[in-house]
């Protein structure tokens, strides 16, 4: 099978959906000729023109608001939010308007739009261009949240996001744009709410999202060399969450570590860990461990930044301690 970059996969997904449905358009800062700073959208304006690939002023709340209005009245906008950190700028339009319109209208209105944005530290971009804010939007009923972990996942999830009749926030790992993966030429979609078991194992379950999937894959390799069999699960979407696949795995392995690049406190890891604790408690041989980014703003210095994010050895070490029972009696 051919291999393409995550960047190319996203580009293909959007192009295919724009060809399929004339109501789909792109809107955001420097999405047209510039193709975004990450060049993910290069070539789209040449095919679809400036009517459907719309460059805006630097007005995130403004163009997010426009997208909500367009979506309410028959268009299917894709909002390009250059950095995930800018979610804070669009909160009212996303969380008070888009997320609630369907519910507040008793189901009469719907807001079919996609916010494509990104997450991920270790790019030496400091605290305002490095955050992983998926927990923030996952907290708001009415939004769906997708976290692709490879080029293959990015394409299939983006296509599903564009066809969904609800507001979807899709986070791409900005460090993964040039990573290649096998992606079929033929069309495919990845349904929301169906986790992917990347690696089967019997001793411990590693639930990992987005950037942390690679980290947990590497941890699983380290552990395998030591005779520990780790199962790696990528939920793909945290809203909706495929709880069953995760619980089934934990009932089998009796141990779980949940890894996500958002801040650890009040985060995605906390939510998934607590669901495991509530629903698979009697199957557990130890506490469910959360591993997120440190609870500090992302520092600039490489010497500091790298230690804020979970790494394979750290995940492997927690797995070993869980298996040895060291965490079971921790005060």
């Amino acid at each position: 099978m051919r291999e393409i970059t995550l960047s190319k996969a996203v580009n293909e997904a959007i192009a295919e959906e724009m060809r399929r449905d004339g109501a789909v358009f792109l809107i955001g800062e420097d999405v047209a000729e510039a193709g975004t700073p990450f060049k993910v959208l290069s070539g789209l304006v040449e095919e679809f023109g400036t009517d459907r690939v719309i460059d805006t002023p630097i007005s995130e709340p403004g163009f997010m608001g426009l997208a909500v209005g367009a979506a309410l009245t028959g268009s299917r906008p894709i909002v390009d939010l250059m950095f995930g950190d800018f979610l804070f700028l669009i909160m009212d339009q996303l969380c008070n308007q888009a997320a609630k319109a369907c519910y507040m209208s008793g189901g009469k209105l719907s807001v079919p739009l996609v916010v494509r944005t990104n997450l991920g530290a270790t790019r030496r971009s400091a605290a305002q261009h490095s955050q992983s804010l998926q927990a923030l939007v996952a907290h708001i009923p009415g939004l769906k949240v997708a976290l692709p972990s490879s080029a293959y996942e990015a394409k299939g999830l983006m296509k599903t996001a564009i066809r969904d009749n609800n507001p979807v926030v899709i986070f791409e790992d900005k460090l993964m744009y040039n990573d290649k993966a096998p992606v079929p030429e033929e069309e495919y979609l990845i349904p929301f709410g169906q986790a992917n078991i990347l690696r089967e194992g019997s001793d411990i379950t590693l639930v990992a999202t987005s950037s942390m999937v690679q980290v947990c894959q590497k941890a699983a390799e380290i552990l395998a060399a030591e005779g520990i069999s780790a199962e790696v699960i990528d939920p793909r979407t945290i809203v909706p969450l495929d709880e069953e696949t995760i619980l089934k795995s934990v009932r089998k392995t009796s141990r779980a570590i949940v890894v996500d690049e958002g801040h650890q406190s009040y985060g995605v890891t906390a939510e998934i860990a607590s669901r495991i604790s509530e629903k698979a408690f009697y199957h557990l041989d130890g506490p469910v461990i959360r591993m997120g980014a440190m609870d500090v703003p992302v520092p600039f210095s490489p010497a500091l930044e790298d230690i804020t994010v979970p790494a394979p050895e750290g995940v492997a070490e927690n797995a070993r301690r869980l298996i040895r029972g060291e965490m079971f009696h921790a005060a």
Partner: protein
Amino acid sequence: MERKTNSEDYLRMYTQMVRIRAFEDQANQLYLSAKMPGLTHMYSGEEAVAVGICTALTDADRITSTHRGHGHCVAKGADFRQMFCELLGKEEGYCRGKGGSMHIADQSHGNLGANAIVGGSMGIATGSALRAKLQDSDDVTVCFFGDGATAQGLWYEVMNMAALWHLPVIYACENNGYSEYTATEEIAAGSIVGRAEAFGIESFQVDGQDVLAVNELAERLVARCRKGEGPFFIELKTYRYHGHHVGDINRDYYRSKEEETIWKEKRDPIVNFGQWLAKQGVASDTELEKIRAEVKAEAEAAVEYALAASYPDVSEVSMHVYAPNDAA
């Protein structure tokens, strides 16, 4: 012939203004008698704004509304029963009781919904206009908001884009003189009209108590929007008879009773238009009195209906969080 058409239009506008006033009188009574959950914001006094503008629109044209939204809703064609049911949280309400006073949306008449965030719908209205342009549709969107909302940054972002892309949107600022409990001159520097003009948007000021003046301007601007000459801005000077919301009773600290009396006795849009209609021979005082009586009876009947209507089943609490997707 022309005269007759005008007469019908005039009487329709008069009736719509009377309907808004009657609706609000009933809503206020529901609050005062503790039959309505929560609070509501009365539109009474501002009827000529909503009616003058919405009379210039078709059902295909969209509006976005505000927390003070009953007037826009009625003027755009909404039904009393479904509105009162919504105010009381009943299943037959426009939003099945999930939205309440501040979130009534009426898709069938192009009302994209009231909004409880001040200025929150400015992006939505402009986006609706963007959609019209992208889809080559000649419908127009009117964005209603108050003077208080001109302090929100969102407005300046979306006006910029509307002007850059010549979108068919009309920003209608209902300047009732008060931003919640504060006089507008205390919160607005410079000129409100000047702010829209700074974006190169053709802007107008009109007496918001004069339904004919409002409607004449709106008809003109809507027609120009359909030809791609938008966007436009209108500042409508008007007045709200009640407080910021129904519970805002003692308001001497920000607004005098004398001022309220002057507006109610000298500037009332319904009384003044009724006198004009009688003077022009369009309708006699008796005929106008009959309209008011019929509307009042309709409003009372709708309230009775809504009071007796059912609440939604508790199973509905988790319905409509997400819109369904078509089966793959």
